[in-house]
């Protein structure tokens, strides 16, 4: 059996599908930004010592992480408007940002937390000894040490998110996947259409992954004290 592959259809479909790239990438960054900010909200909520709230927050996070993002999208888009009192109908793009953003914010909150936990206890104590306020301690001492080492991990989540964004096509966000569906259905050229989508994702994700890998190695070097020692010796002497 021969594969029914038509290059002319491929080149015809390509510009059509590529028109959705702005939406796909834009949505990725919007979701990511939302998750970056909301991740901090989780960190703050989790630090509340009051038991019932702590319990509630922990289980909410667990719940969000344990349910598929697709179901969360469907819930926000189709089910939420039907709840009397709090139900609101939102545009599909808003739903996508909310749904994917909240889902990934739980992971990103954990990344922040691991960064914060990795800061030595002595840093808090030194801040007390220098009479910093709690707020100053967070902003000047803890976060500047906690966040940079997490940047590669955050980058990984950006790529993972990029690959989850096509889920938004199920609630009507017209990115590259939705356009491919349209093209495939209209011209009966699913093979070419979906190959193009896969290629676009590959071309964008793979170099990004390499970039983040490099960044990670650079970060590790920076935080390896011996390496810093050697570098500086080379520079000073």
């Amino acid at each position, binding site marked *: 059996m021969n594969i029914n592959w038509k290059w002319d259809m491929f080149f015809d479909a390509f510009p059509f599908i590529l028109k959705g790239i702005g939406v796909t990438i834009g949505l990725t960054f919007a979701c990511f930004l939302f998750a970056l900010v909301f991740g901090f909200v989780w960190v703050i909520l989790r630090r509340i010592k009051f038991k019932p709230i702590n319990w509630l927050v922990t289980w909410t996070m667990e719940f969000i992480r344990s349910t598929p993002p697709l179901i969360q999208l469907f819930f926000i888009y189709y089910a939420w408007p039907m709840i009397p009192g709090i139900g609101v109908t939102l545009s599909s793009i808003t739903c996508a940002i909310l749904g994917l953003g909240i889902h990934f914010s739980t992971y990103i909150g954990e990344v922040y937390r691991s960064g914060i936990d990795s800061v*030595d206890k*002595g*840093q808090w*104590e*030194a801040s*007390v*000894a*220098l*009479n*910093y*306020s*709690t707020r*100053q301690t967070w902003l*000047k*001492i803890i976060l*500047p*040490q906690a966040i940079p080492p997490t940047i590669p991990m955050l980058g990984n989540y950006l790529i993972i998110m990029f690959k989850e964004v096509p889920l938004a096509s199920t609630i009507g966000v017209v990115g590259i996947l939705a356009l491919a569906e349209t093209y495939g259905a209209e011209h009966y050229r699913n093979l070419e259409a979906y190959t193009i989508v896969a290629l676009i994702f590959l071309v964008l994700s793979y170099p990004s992954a390499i970039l983040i890998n490099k960044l990670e190695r650079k970060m590790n070097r920076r935080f390896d*004290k011996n390496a*810093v*020692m050697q570098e*500086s010796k080379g520079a000073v002497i």
Partner: protein
Amino acid sequence: MAELVKEMKQSITPKRGAKPIVEYKDVYKSFGEVEVLKGLNLDIFPGEKVALIGPSGSGKTTIIRMLMTLEQPTSGEIIVDGTDLWHMKKNGKTIPANEKHLREVRGDIGMVFQHFNLFPHMTILENCMTAPIQVKKESKETARERSVEMLEKVGLGDKLDNYPSQLSGGQKQRVAMARALVMRPKIMLFDEVTSALDPELVGEVLEVIRDIAEEGEMAMVLVTHEMDFALEIADRVIFLDDGVIAEQGSASEVLEESDNERLQQFLYRFRS
């Protein structure tokens, strides 16, 4: 003998007449089931150099950590310059201190730690400058000037733009002292500041402490295992054992005249 002990107890306030700058009043501290301090009563006077010695687990470090507000007493009061550190008054009632109160009272206290606790993301000059700017609202120029001066004093004037990771342990600890001194504390706490250092680096750190001590204005409380050094610079040596002050007095009193058996045992171990 009882006579002598009584006399000793009376001679323990070298700056007699002055008002104590720190008073511990019947302070208890437990960690879970373990009672570390069992009714501590201790006055520290302005400018006084106090050395806390004793076996590990005797509560030495806990005493200064409570004063730095790193540890909260289980009961009792710590009065700093006339103000109760861990309690405040509200509508005539005494309630646990909030952060604002703690910050107001602990402003005159500085501390140097066993593990330096320098800020690794800042140069050593920034390590010294940030607190005066952020906390004391000094101008950048003043803070910088005083920090440079202080770093020169501890012999690190040529390392201003280095990061802590580029320094030796002894140098780090000297930065930590400069950082604390820039805040102009009235009371300086030293928590086993030479314990984490290689033996050959201990000397340079003790040298700086000696210099600071000679200037005289600051009260200093040293928790230390450097026995000879403690005896050399301290106005008063306090021997803690099992959560209470078992003996105290001037170095010579504690060394030569005390008949406390536990103290003799403790000192014997350091001399052998």
